[in-house]
């Protein structure tokens, strides 16, 4: 752990940004005017130098705790709100958590630790200035099977991709992510650095409610996964929004979703970012096309990208430094590269994401990334989104099965068999035969996980 004092803390950052504001769907607000003068975490002084799990239910309380504890606690452990007691217990052990901060002293976290309450109204309790610490930020990686794996970041590694405030009017952000996930945390930190307003999403709020709130606040910048965006485009009220900036991350941004967003928001800059909890923010693609320029590979500099055995490797100050609580796992190789497990194909001067190494389907010995097939199906004009998976087959192990959500306007009017036939023909013209779906089913919707990613069996 780096013991030098930090250049800044989150609170220090926000204090110099008077227009920073967080807004929730219930109308609660956190603004920079109260920070520094009020304390929300009860018994804060006893958390100096401790390993603290942020167990808040609400994002606002979690944000308050992050702001007060960065530079004060030795470790901040940040888990998504949907973590089960078993997963939390594993996190508490691995991160050697000393205390938990949450809204209610009766909450249960799988493994008993002293609870400290984040109050909804601040008190003018005397703030105890402690030596500023370089707080470690621990986040679980986004895999969904097995015990959670924690990686260590610092405020600096998390802020690495964020530019300072610009002189123009400050943006009004919203994100479909929860700020306790890497993608949402990035937007929260952007709002802190830019002194911006951030409208927090809420799992309890309808999409219509969220859209109405965005209109009221004059949202200019929106971030989410491609699955979040598809869900928005399936809501007729998406036409009311007029974002200047549209950001996608967390999943592959395929040609279909990029062109649908360009069509829906012709005045917006559509940017897709490559980022992961382990690898940090790698790069942003601003040319509106899928994939990224191959010229980004093999360049020396702050962010170094390599293609090894088909997988993207990253070395940069924005990656996490290590796994925590798992001595058997190594995050960085000897040269400091993180293997992202995201498989790439280079075609000429462009690189394209094929999918996750772990999600591969084996069709008679030939490997198929479900995402590659989905990208082709999604490119068919009447398709909104799709999910490709394996179906067991006694002849060749696995075959490809597809579930498809049609665009709203075509969903009810088409002859299903004719449409299936057309989509299959479209796939056959573009994919090797073993990758063409063998079975195809139209479904009204596909599950999107709380992480904003499409629910996959092998995620």
């Amino acid at each position, binding site marked *: 752990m780096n013991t030098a004092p930090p250049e800044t803390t989150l609170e220090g950052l926000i204090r110099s940004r008077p227009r920073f504001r967080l807004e929730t769907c219930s109308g609660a607000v956190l603004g920079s005017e109260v920070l520094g003068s009020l304390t929300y975490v009860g018994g804060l002084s006893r958390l100096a130098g401790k390993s603290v799990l942020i167990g808040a239910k609400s994002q606002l309380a979690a944000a308050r705790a992050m702001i007060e504890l960065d530079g004060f606690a030795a470790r901040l452990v940040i888990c998504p709100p949907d973590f089960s007691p078993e997963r939390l217990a594993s996190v508490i052990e691995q991160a050697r958590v000393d205390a938990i901060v949450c809204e209610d002293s009766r909450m249960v976290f799988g493994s008993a630790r002293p609870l400290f309450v984040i109050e909804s109204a601040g008190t003018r309790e005397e703030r105890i200035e402690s030596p500023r610490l370089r707080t470690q930020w621990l986040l679980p990686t986004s895999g969904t099977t097995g015990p959670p794996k924690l990686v260590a970041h610092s405020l600096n590694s998390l802020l690495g991709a964020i530019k300072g405030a610009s002189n123009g009017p400050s943006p009004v952000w919203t994100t479909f992510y929860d700020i306790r996930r890497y993608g949402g945390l990035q937007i929260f930190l952007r709002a802190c650095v830019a002194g911006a307003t951030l409208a927090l999403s809420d799992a309890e709020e309808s999409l219509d409610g969220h859209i109405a709130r965005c209109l009221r606040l004059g949202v200019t910048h929106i971030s989410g996964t491609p699955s979040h965006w598809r869900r928005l485009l399936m809501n007729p009220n998406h036409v009311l929004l007029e974002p200047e900036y549209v950001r996608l991350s967390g999943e592959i941004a395929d040609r279909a979703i990029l062109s649908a967003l360009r069509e829906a928001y012709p005045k917006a800059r559509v940017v897709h970012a490559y980022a992961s909890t382990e690898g940090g923010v790698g790069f942003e693609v601003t040319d509106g096309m899928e994939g990224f320029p191959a010229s980004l590979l093999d360049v020396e500099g702050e962010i170094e990208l390599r293609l090894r055995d088909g997988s993207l490797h990253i070395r940069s100050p924005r990656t996490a430094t290590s796994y925590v609580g798992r001595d058997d796992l190594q995050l960085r190789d000897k040269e400091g590269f993180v293997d992202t497990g995201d498989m790439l194909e280079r075609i000429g001067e462009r690189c394209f994401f094929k999918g996750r190494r772990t999600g591969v389907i084996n069709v008679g010995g030939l490997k198929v990334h479900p995402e590659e097939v989905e990208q082709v199906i999604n490119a068919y004009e009447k398709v909104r989104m799709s999910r490709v998976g394996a179906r067991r087959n*006694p*002849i060749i192990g696995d075959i490809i099965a597809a579930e498809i959500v049609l665009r709203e306007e075509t969903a009810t009017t088409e002859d299903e068999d004719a449409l299936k036939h057309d989509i*299959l023909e479209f796939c*056959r013209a573009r994919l090797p035969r073993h990758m063409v779906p063998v*079975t195809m089913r139209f479904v009204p919707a596909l599950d999107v996980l709380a992480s904003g990613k499409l629910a996959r069996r092998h995620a």
Partner: protein
Amino acid sequence: MSIRLTIISQIENIAAEQSKKIAPLDDSLLLSQSGLDSLCFAILVARLEDILGTDPFTASDEVYFPTTLGEFVELYEHCPA
């Protein structure tokens, strides 16, 4: 449609989709010489499962793999749906 006719028409569909030239479909035809490859058979088995609601290859622990078209049809005819 009978099981036999369902199987024959599916084989013809798949051969057309996969641009395979197939031999005349009589009972003595060796599957290995039918013109269909293993992916075609995989598709056939999956389609038949969807249509007939049965997959004789996984329905029982003891499966013999048919070698002729006649045996293949028989396997489906004797498999409880």
